């Protein structure tokens, strides 16, 4: 799966969870400061990413997710080589 595919899926998920339109979600926008999302919503985005890609992030990793880019990178790190 290419980075772009992962990014698209993550953004679609963010759009669904936050009701922000897909096109308005930039790759490096901060979930908290730019998109004004609270911690529950950010956790929901992270868990949805885990669920979609069938990966499991550690609690520390979850704490590091602040932007779409972070989410994509984290997923890539955990995806098995067969999927990448």
């Amino acid at each position, binding site marked *: 799966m290419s980075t772009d595919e992962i990014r698209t899926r993550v953004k679609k998920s963010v759009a669904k969870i936050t009701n922000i339109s897909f096109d308005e979600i930039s790759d490096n926008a901060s979930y908290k400061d730019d998109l004004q999302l609270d911690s529950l919503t950010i956790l929901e985005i992270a*868990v949805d990413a885990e669920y979609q890609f069938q990966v499991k992030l550690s609690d520390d990793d979850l704490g590091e997710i602040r932007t779409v880019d972070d989410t994509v990178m984290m997923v890539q790190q955990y995806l098995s080589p067969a999927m990448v």
Partner: protein
Amino acid sequence: MERRIVITGIGVVTPIGTGCEEFWTNLIEGRSGIAPVQSFDTSNYDVHRGAEVKEFNAEEYILNLDAAHLGRASQFAIAAARLALADAGVEIGSLDRKRAGVSMGTTSGEPREVERFDDAYVSKKLDRIGPEFLALYPCHVIAAHVASELNFAGVNIMIPTACAAGNYAIAHALDVMRAERADLMLAGGSDAFSRITFTGFARLGAVAPETCQPFNRFRKGMIPGEGAGVLVLEPFDRARRRGARIYAEVGGYGLSCDAHHMTAAHPQGDGAKRAMQQALTDSKTKPEDVSYISAHGTGTLTNDRLETIAVKRLFKDAAYRIPISSIKSMLGHTMGAASAIEAAVCALAVFNDRVPPTINLNDPDPDCDLDYVPNFAREMRVNVAMNNAYAFGGNNASLILKKRELLN
């Protein structure tokens, strides 16, 4: 003159004992009820400990209904109700049943019933689920079952305001009694250990791996639990006339809503402060007259910090002089039962002039600098106790209990 309402009986089913005596003894000794979860398999989880009720024999307490056809939260509630009535020395048969009522709180109702449903659904065997689902699952059955067991035909109400439910239920019972709609009320809360609740809190990262350490610097979260607490409320005059032991007066309460976030409290503890203020006003208590506070104290980073802020904002300098402890350090978080059990503890504190400790407090968080009665119970005069509870949805409730002597 408003009717004065007192607590004449206490019944509890908890992770550290069933029945007032056993429970209070273990509480004062600082015993913990936290252990590896037994009621379902936690191998797929990152956390494995909970505060379950051990060795509960429902048949012992359920004499009219069939225990086997009741959910666990109902069983706990009935047991606590019977224990409370026995503790109060009330002859059930002598009551005017239309003026005897039940007001209970809960978080989950009967979760095992819906968990059974889901198990069947997921294994495509839904036809296993029959008429018992509707009869046993909806949360109002808890108060209903207590009333049916005891033949109480008066007020019957369920207030499922999650982790603050016990306080809400007791507050409502107080109102019912003040309005003379009942001569006796059973009030409290009950919750059974729930896979759904455990899963949710674990997923939020809110569950501690080992113990519950409220106000401790390195606290790691709450520990889900289960149990029930029921109080017998009677009018002061009747209680005195029949020579009942009076634990405490229910002085008043305050309710508020943060209207801020479903799972996170208001950052300045605004709702919590308003609930406490209302409770003081309602009970005609000055802040500095509060002797002891039973904290919500779940052991999560945010709750303990915000609760401390709210207490300081309201009590100002007096905050540093009022002991405030969290029994969740020992019982874990018994959900809808928590504030009911904590109210019972406040009544016992007022009656016995002794307050329970916050255990596991060896290294306090610098932001949490109040007197949390660390590790050891304390003998002290308790004239007025405040019981605080905060829930998902921003539901806040504070209850004030006062020494009986102050009634005369």
